[in-house]
């Protein structure tokens, strides 16, 4: 059985008495030590799905629905607020895009790491500090014994990202949600951070959900990929299968948009049209107005499918 099983997770916004579904019945599995890349363009609901998972929705108008979200056999949807607080950090950690603003500017790095350790593992102040130094060393901060007493503003961008990973790791979570962890960093630091995440997976058996819109990041790090479009999961599979032989036309379009794939052309390829507004979704498949091979069925019936949500998938897999 997988470590994390998500079944039909929806996030619904109540907009002046009318419900708008932002994330629509998303299901996926995550095994121990697996890295899943959640890919999609801005507004496709990838961040919202993960915020729903950890139940940190940005507004009181949003609510979560679903059949089950089970983490190590425990159904998170059944937990109350206090139960969820124990899961957050301790079992389900999260790191964010902008490390500078996600650290408390007035607290020493070491204290921020130690605070979570003390809360979740009941460690003493002295032990927590020693553990904090150890975690800082693991995430590759040089001279952690001295750096543990620094404030966030004394760290560089890449070091802050490492520090934020250290804060999340201090609580020893089983699953780490990484919400575009490298978007704010330059390319060399980005490569270091991705390397770090891979090392942590290997050393600790950490499972990671990596939210990103960068297929390059996915290709370097992930084991599996889930592609989201307009709040729906449209394709889900192993990295090699999905990148080499995409079956959903949207996935194929995304891969085609990569600059490397259109090197012979004067213009970058794009997918024509705009993603639909979530309160004015088209009937049938949500991608059909932009799809190059939409048939009559596509405009009428919403395609279901755990692996590929498409009526006319591109070429069968070899």
């Amino acid at each position: 059985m997988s470590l994390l099983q998500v079944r039909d997770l929806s996030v619904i916004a109540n907009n002046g008495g009318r419900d708008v579904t932002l994330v629509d019945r998303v299901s996926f599995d995550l095994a121990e030590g697996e890295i899943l890349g959640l890919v999609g363009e801005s507004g496709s609901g990838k961040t919202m799905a993960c915020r729903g998972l950890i139940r940190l929705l940005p507004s009181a108008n949003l609510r979560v629905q679903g059949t089950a979200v089970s983490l190590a056999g425990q159904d998170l949807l059944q937990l109350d607020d206090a139960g969820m607080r124990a899961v957050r950090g301790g079992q389900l950690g999260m790191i964010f895009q902008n490390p500078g603003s996600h650290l408390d500017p007035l607290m020493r790095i070491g204290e921020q790491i130690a605070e979570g350790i003390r809360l979740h593992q009941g460690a003493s102040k002295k032990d927590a500090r020693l553990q904090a130094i150890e975690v800082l060393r693991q995430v590759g901060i040089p001279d952690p014994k001295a750096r543990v007493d620094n404030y966030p503003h004394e760290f560089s961008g890449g070091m802050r990202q490492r520090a934020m990973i250290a804060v999340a790791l201090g609580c020893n979570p089983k699953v780490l949600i990484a919400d575009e962890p490298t978007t704010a960093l330059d390319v060399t630091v980005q490569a270091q951070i991705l390397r770090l995440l891979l090392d942590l997976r290997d050393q600790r058996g950490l499972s990671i959900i990596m939210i990103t819109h960068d297929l390059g990041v996915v290709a370097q790090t992930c084991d599996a990929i889930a592609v989201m479009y307009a709040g729906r999961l449209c394709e889900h599979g192993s990295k090699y299968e999905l990148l080499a032989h995409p079956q959903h036309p949207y996935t194929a379009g995304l891969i085609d948009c990569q600059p490397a794939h259109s090197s012979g052309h004067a213009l970058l390829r794009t997918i024509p049209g705009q993603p639909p507004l979530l309160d004015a979704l088209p009937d049938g498949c949500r991608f059909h107005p932009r799809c190059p091979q939409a048939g009559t069925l596509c405009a009428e019936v919403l395609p279901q499918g755990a692996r590929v949500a498409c009526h006319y998938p591109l070429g069968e897999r070899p």
Partner: protein
Amino acid sequence: MSSRPLIAPWRLRLRFGFRNGRLTAAWGLLILLAWLALALFAPWIAPFDPIAQNTDMSLLAPSLAHPFGTDNYGRDILSRVIWGARIDLQLAVVGVIFPFIIGTFIGAVSGYVGGRFDSFCMRVIDVVLAFPFLVLMLAIMAILGPGLKSFYIAMALVGWVSYARLIRSQILVLKESEFALAAKSLGFGHGRILFRHLLPNALFGSIVFSMSDAVLVLLNGAAVSYLGLGVQPPTAEWGTMVAEGQAFITTAWWICTFPGLAIVTLAMGFSLLADGVAQVLGDRS
């Protein structure tokens, strides 16, 4: 071009000191410390007993024996000003601390909890603000009776509103901040997030405000004493001394002038410190 710096390093440092407000804060602190020293060592510094009357010596102009002159009861003004520092410093500090604590707590909780509790707190603040500050204070002090204790109580009841509004507006911004989200993602409870993470980040503004507020409290205390509700004679207090000297302003100017100058310098000390600290903190963030 030579690589020699255009400005000598020591001058650079001096300029830097000017610009980021450290010097301003240092001057303010120096004035406050000077008054504090005078207050602490009053019994040894003051040349005469501040309340001993001597009608033979009344209304003497400033001289070597009495540098600030004497009042209508023949009391030495210099000694009274030095002893008065004890009362007036206490007035400014205690008169700020209680409103600060009460206002910070109510403002923080109100901003963080939001909803109906927040609206309730805001309406209470509106009611307090609807009355002129001094009128409300005088009303409360008239009920409690004159004296320093009722001044502090009245200050706490009226003064917390400014702190509450300041802190609340900061918390409203900070609770949507990304590090608050990060704290939630670590499973921290509301109390820990509010008091350990949000509040320390919200305090800068109120700390600076509290120092300039000390000036207002000091003037308020002087005003209330002047009106006869604060410190009671014969205790030496600057506001009361100004009030008592008023009758002799045309014949003996020194009775009002020296305690008045004392109020001005102490207020300036608080003001300079507040400005300097605001600049230093502003530069940093």
